[in-house]
């Protein structure tokens, strides 16, 4: 696909002059206008575009919020209220940014599970997948740093608990944590450096997203059948087909986004964060933002400090190895009758861990958190390698066109005549 030639034809004299010196328009045309996309992409494939949009919203709202925010222990909390009440449209910008973080994670989770269901991580897309995992990690770091900035009780104690993860490192842990804090506890010094890094990381994300898209355009997109496009009739040009589908999905997504921004901006936050940070009082029930809850449940499920931190980090790091843990010859779970059930068990596990992460760490909640933590890891380390070997995939079509036209399901013979007819219909 990288060798796909651009059909760009400069129309004006200026365009021709530019094309001979810096062919940006030619590159864009080749990669985003007549780039061949599988013709059977469903709406789950629109989340890449949605994520790019949300990243743009976060950058734009973040840059203007930074014009009014005061990054100091004395001023941060008040400046957020100042933004909400006094700054022109400050309420809107702040709500867009806070809700935007949640929307970003909602979209990224759909995107990740899409990849897991359709085997988008399998060869030759391993590097594409790993860049995605790195993007997810940087997103988590950015979201954590950003949540510290309002300097409420949850900001302060969330920062304390999460920076303390590093104190679990043997020998140097304590020094590392003091280095992160710039003191002996989380303080205004910590807030300033978190602000600096929170401004930096989104630009790192932009660079990583560029690499992610580059890798995507080298291998081409996966699709619901998991079969590579073989003929021209298996693909359609990105514009207008994929672009218009993306735009429609984006419009629907923006309605959801706007619903939260205008009608329930604080629903996804925590009331304790409207109390100013107090280093002497820990809230009775510390919970992270909803998008971190499954990992928080894993942390608390392990009855040892180092073990809990290792399990939590491992839960994310294990995603890197998925391309090699899955031994199946078939990409798409659609044609994997056994793995299908394990996939949905895994989705349920993640949701259950999210629920348990929000509950107090006691009694039956801990027991269940341990059960689901076990399955979380078992899914990757036991289910993926074994099921891929023992299962017989069924119902694979011969090509994307066959699947779209409802022919040849079950891998039945397809005569050359019908194949030609299918191609003609294009």
């Amino acid at each position: 696909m990288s060798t796909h030639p651009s059909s760009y034809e400069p129309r004006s004299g200026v365009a021709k002059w530019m094309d001979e010196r810096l062919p940006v328009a030619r590159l864009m045309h080749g990669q985003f206008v007549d780039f061949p996309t599988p013709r059977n992409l469903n709406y789950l494939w629109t989340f890449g575009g949605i994520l790019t949009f949300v990243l743009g919203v976060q950058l734009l709202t973040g840059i203007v919020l930074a014009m009014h925010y005061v990054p100091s222990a004395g001023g941060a909390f008040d400046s957020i209220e100042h933004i909400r009440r006094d700054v022109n449209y400050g309420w809107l910008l702040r709500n867009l940014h806070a809700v935007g973080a949640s929307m970003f994670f909602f979209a990224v989770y759909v995107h990740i599970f899409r990849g897991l269901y359709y085997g988008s991580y399998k060869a030759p897309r391993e590097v594409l997948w790993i860049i995605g995992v790195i993007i997810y990690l940087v997103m988590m770091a950015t979201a954590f740093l950003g949540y510290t900035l309002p300097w409420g009780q949850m900001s302060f104690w969330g920062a304390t608990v999460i920076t303390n993860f590093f104190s679990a490192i043997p020998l140097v842990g304590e020094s590392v944590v003091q280095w992160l804090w710039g003191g002996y506890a989380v303080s205004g010094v910590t807030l300033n450096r978190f602000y600096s890094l929170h401004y930096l990381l989104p630009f790192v994300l932009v660079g990583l997203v560029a690499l992610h898209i580059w890798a995507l355009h080298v291998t081409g997109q996966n699709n619901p059948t998991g079969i590579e496009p073989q003929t021209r009739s298996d693909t359609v040009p990105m514009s207008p087909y994929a672009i218009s589908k993306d735009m429609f999905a984006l419009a629907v997504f923006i309605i959801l986004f706007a619903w939260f921004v205008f009608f329930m901006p604080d629903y996804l936050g925590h009331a304790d964060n409207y109390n100013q940070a107090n280093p002497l009082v820990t809230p009775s029930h510390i919970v992270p933002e909803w998008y971190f809850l499954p990992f928080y449940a894993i942390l608390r499920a392990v009855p040892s400090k180092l073990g809990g931190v290792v399990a939590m980090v491992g839960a994310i790091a294990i995603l890197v190895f998925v391309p090699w843990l899955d031994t199946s010859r078939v990409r798409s779970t659609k044609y994997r009758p056994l793995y299908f059930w394990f996939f949905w068990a895994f989705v349920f596990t993640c949701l259950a861990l999210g629920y348990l992460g929000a509950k107090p760490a006691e009694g039956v909640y801990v027991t269940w958190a341990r059960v689901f933590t076990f399955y979380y890891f078992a899914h990757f380390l036991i289910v993926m390698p074994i099921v891929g070997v023992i299962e017989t995939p069924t119902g694979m079509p011969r090509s994307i066109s066959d699947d779209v036209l409802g022919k040849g399901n079950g891998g039945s013979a397809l005569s050359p005549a019908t194949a030609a007819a299918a191609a003609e219909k294009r």
Partner: protein
Amino acid sequence: MSSHAEEPTRRDFLTIAGTAFAAVGGAMALWPFIAQMNPDASTQALASVEIDLTPVKAGQAITVMWRGKPVFIRNRTPEEIEKAAATPVGELPDPESDLQRVKKGRENWLVLVGICTHLGCIPKGQSLADMKGDYGGWFCPCHGSHYDLSGRIRKGPAPRNLEVPAYEFVEDTKIRIG
């Protein structure tokens, strides 16, 4: 480059030596950018505080700030001391006797950094109405660690006992922490 193995030349030596110097120089240039994040001089200057203990009656506890961290000072009653001292040390996750955690002759004063050794929350147990956990000392609400009347971890995910900061009695009723 010829295809057969050759003796290292002067140029090979210069390349390796030059690269090594550039690497060392690069690392040294990087150091100030890393070290600037460590606690600064003004933070370190707050390293010691003096506390007057006169108003703290037996059974009471106060919280003071030291290095931006809360320090719990508890004036233990004779029964509490007895209970803490009677605990079999061998059964503890982080074995320390009560005597190792107080000053000899002033066993009633228990001085602790009030930060859970798990993930840094402030345990409950300083005020009378607080939950004090299963062992009558402190209870960390974040992840459920129980500390006893000597500040030792008894139950829950915390790996170590509550830290006893370096402190000394400058007078009978005054201590200096740090």
